[in-house]
Structure formats: structure tokens, C-alpha cells
């Protein structure tokens, strides 16, 4: 007797593979991106099935929404010229098939060696959770046990956004600004959605201490809301003075750097949070990360379309 759960799992898995195949092999690039967006949505379902609501929240915003926007926007500029892409030579295709099949078989073989039941670090996290400032396992890993990883992640995000903005600043050609749509449907929808997005991302940020949610999910959602506003012609991030934008983009990294510097000077380990006040520190860090993630997301998407003022006109 096959349970309903198994049927659901297998359907999600098959759907993922089919959507991935479609998005990789459909000749038309725009269709392919549409399939990729659907793939992101189904990935969110897979995370729910794996009891990872934090990942489902992030994937629904990133995989389904933001990556799709980025790809469509770039495709509009690049693929309009190329049209249908060249099909690779059969030798290249054959070699790539063989290599990929070999890697796949090796991975399946490794998977069969993995014991089907193992606790991993779940026990260790549960035991140490009362020692941390928060009650939610994923947040405690992100901002306490493995805060160093999160520190460097914020640095990676900052590097990516610097790359996008620098490339933008060195463009000699004029950049097509985003259509400032006068569509009443879009502006009406954004008017309805924007407050909801704002409240919900605030909720996610607050909930992160004790339930699924946290700085990254809140920041990504807030950033998606910011992009919607920009699309509807309501300029929030792109109107920010460049200097303020730079500071806000580095707020997460700056927060971590300041905290680790202070702790080192106080004679503690790097990012070894003090017992008293740890909760305040974690919440302040979460707010800083959420703000810089949100602005990073907006800058990554809108940055390629910003018409930057020349340096001499900089406020």
C-alpha cells in the first residue's frame, strides 16, 4: 500500500526533473526562463516536504521571483540579438552527456552508502539551544553557532552588489531605463501588495528568534517588494543618495565587523557572544542584515537598469 505522502513526494520530484529538463532544453530562451520560474516554485514545495520552512520562504522569493526577474531582464537585452542559441557540436554534447552521467552514477553510488537514519547535528543543536539567545534552531545556527559563516556570507553579497554597480558605472553606452509603466493594474496591485509585503517581512524578522523566519527571508521579501515598487515607477531605492545607499548596503558586514572587533578588544573570542545582552545583539544584527539584504536584492536587479548620475553631480 503506497501512502499519499509517497505519491506527493514522487509527484514533486518528477515535476522538478521535468521542469528542469524543459528549462534546460527548450529552444526558446524566454520559455526556458518561464519554466525555470515554475521550477523555483516547485522547489519551495520540495523544501516544505523536507520540513524546511525557512528554505521554502527564501526559495519562493528568490528561486521563483528574483532570479526569474534577473534572467528575463538580461534576456531582453542579450537574447533579442542572438535569437535562438546555437546548438553545440555533437562531440561536445556527447562528452558532456558521458561526464554528467558518470558523475550522476558516482553520486547515486555514494548515496546508497549513506545510512538511512542519522541524527547529524540535530541533537547537538537541541542541547545547546538554551545556551543561545534565540529559540529557533536555524537562527541559532546562523547567528550564534556559525555566525562566522553568516559574516562572510554578507561579505559575499556585498562583493556581488559591488560587481554589479561597478560594471554599471563603467558603461559607456546609454542604458535603457525600465519602462515606468502607467498601467493602472500594476500600480493598483502594487498599492495593495506593498503594505502587506512590508508588514509580512517585519513579521518574519521578528519571528526569526523563535519560529521559521529571520533576517534573510525578511530581507529577500522586503527586497522583492522594493523591486515591485521600482517597476511600478515608485522610486525608493533608486532615489536614495549614492552615499547613503553604500552605507546601507554594507550595514550587515559593518555590524558583524564592529561586533567582532568589540568582542576581540573585550578579550573574548571572535563572535563569542556575551551571555547578557546576547539577544539584543542578535536582534540588532538581524535588523542590519535584513536591511542590507533587502537593498542588495533591489540593487542587484535594478542596478543594471539604473541611469547613474555622473560622479560630479553626486550629492
Amino acid at each position, binding site marked *: 500500500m503506497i501512502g499519499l505522502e*509517497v505519491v506527493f513526494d514522487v509527484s514533486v*520530484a518528477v515535476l522538478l*526533473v521535468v521542469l*528542469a*529538463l524543459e528549462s*534546460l*532544453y527548450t529552444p526558446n*530562451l524566454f520559455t526556458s526562463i518561464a519554466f*525555470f520560474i515554475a521550477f523555483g516554485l516547485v*522547489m519551495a514545495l*520540495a523544501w516544505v516536504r*523536507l*520540513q*524546511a520552512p525557512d*528554505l521554502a520562504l*527564501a526559495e519562493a522569493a*528568490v*528561486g521563483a521571483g528574483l532570479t526569474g526577474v*534577473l*534572467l528575463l*531582464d*538580461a534576456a531582453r*537585452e*542579450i*537574447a533579442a*540579438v*542572438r535569437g535562438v542559441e546555437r546548438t*553545440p557540436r555533437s562531440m*561536445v554534447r556527447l562528452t558532456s552527456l558521458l561526464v*554528467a*552521467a558518470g558523475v550522476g552514477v558516482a*553520486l*547515486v553510488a555514494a*548515496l546508497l552508502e549513506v545510512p*538511512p*537514519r*542519522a*541524527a547529524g*547535528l*540535530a541533537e547537538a*543543536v537541541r542541547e545547546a539551544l538554551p545556551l543561545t539567545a534565540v529559540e529557533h534552531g536555524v537562527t541559532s*545556527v*546562523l547567528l550564534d553557532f556559525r555566525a562566522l*559563516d553568516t559574516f562572510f556570507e554578507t561579505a559575499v*553579497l556585498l562583493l*556581488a*552588489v559591488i*560587481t*554589479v554597480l561597478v*560594471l554599471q558605472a563603467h*558603461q*559607456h553606452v546609454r542604458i*535603457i*531605463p525600465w*519602462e515606468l509603466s502607467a498601467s493602472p493594474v500594476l500600480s493598483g496591485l502594487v498599492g495593495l501588495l506593498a503594505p502587506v509585503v512590508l508588514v509580512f517581512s517585519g513579521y518574519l524578522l521578528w519571528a526569526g528568534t523563535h519560529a521559521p523566519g529571520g533576517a*534573510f527571508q525578511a530581507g*529577500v521579501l522586503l527586497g522583492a517588494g522594493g523591486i515591485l515598487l521600482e517597476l511600478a515607477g515608485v522610486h525608493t531605492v533608486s532615489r536614495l543618495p549614492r552615499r547613503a545607499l553604500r552605507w546601507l548596503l554594507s550595514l550587515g558586514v559593518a555590524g558583524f565587523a564592529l561586533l567582532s572587533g568589540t568582542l576581540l578588544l573585550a578579550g573574548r573570542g571572535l563572535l563569542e557572544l556575551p551571555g547578557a545582552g546576547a539577544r539584543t545583539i542578535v536582534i540588532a544584527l538581524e535588523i542590519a542584515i535584513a536591511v542590507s*539584504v533587502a537593498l542588495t536584492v533591489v540593487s*542587484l536587479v535594478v542596478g*543594471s537598469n539604473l541611469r547613474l548620475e555622473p560622479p560630479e553631480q553626486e550629492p
Partner: protein
Amino acid sequence: MDTFLTFALTGVVLFSLGLQEVLARPGVLRMLIAVNVMGSGTLLFFVSLAHRHADGPDPVPHALALTGIVVTLAATAAGLALARGLHRLRAEGSGGRVEGGRVEGGRSQGAGYERGRSESGRDEQGRADR
């Protein structure tokens, strides 16, 4: 077949599919889609390993996968920005704004890029008129 095995196998399949497409040297946008599919496969494999415990999943892979999702977005955006920069350079090269032949590929694929440049120019004109 339980949830762990189903999604771990799906992860392997997604990784291999993406790898195949990356190695087949498609256009740059398709390659970034393929890298994203590979990334999803990797995270799916990793997080399904966290699902092998009876009393709830292991939060450590969840936290790492969460950072993975956000970093993938940042990497994709940086890749796309580079691709667009390259594209504009080539368009400029073939359009004669940069001295002829300085940008390789600009000459060989000149006709296509030239067409693209004038299209986008017209586009801009149309928008300015509105």
C-alpha cells in the same frame, strides 16, 4: 521509498542535468540557468540528508542551504551583469564606437550585434517619445 531518498535522488538527477548543460557550452544565459539547476540539486541533496532523523530535521544544513540560496542569487546577478557588460562592449565594438577590431568577436559577429544595437536604439527613441 521515503522522503529522504526521493529528494536525494532528485538532487543527483538535477545536478547531473545541470552539469551536462554547462559542459555542452550553451549561451551564457542558458549556462546560468544550468548552474542554478545544479545549485538547487546540490542543496536538495544536502537538505534531504538532514531529513534522516526521526524527531525533526537537523537545522545546520538548513542554515547553510539558506545562505546558499541567497549567495546563488548574488552570483547569478553578478554573472548576468558581466554578461551584459560583455554584450554591450561587443555591440560597441561592431558599431564602430570603439576603433575597429579592438573587441574580438565584434567583427566576426558584427552583423547580428549591429542589428541589436540599432534595435535597442530605436527602443530608446520610442520610449523617449512617449
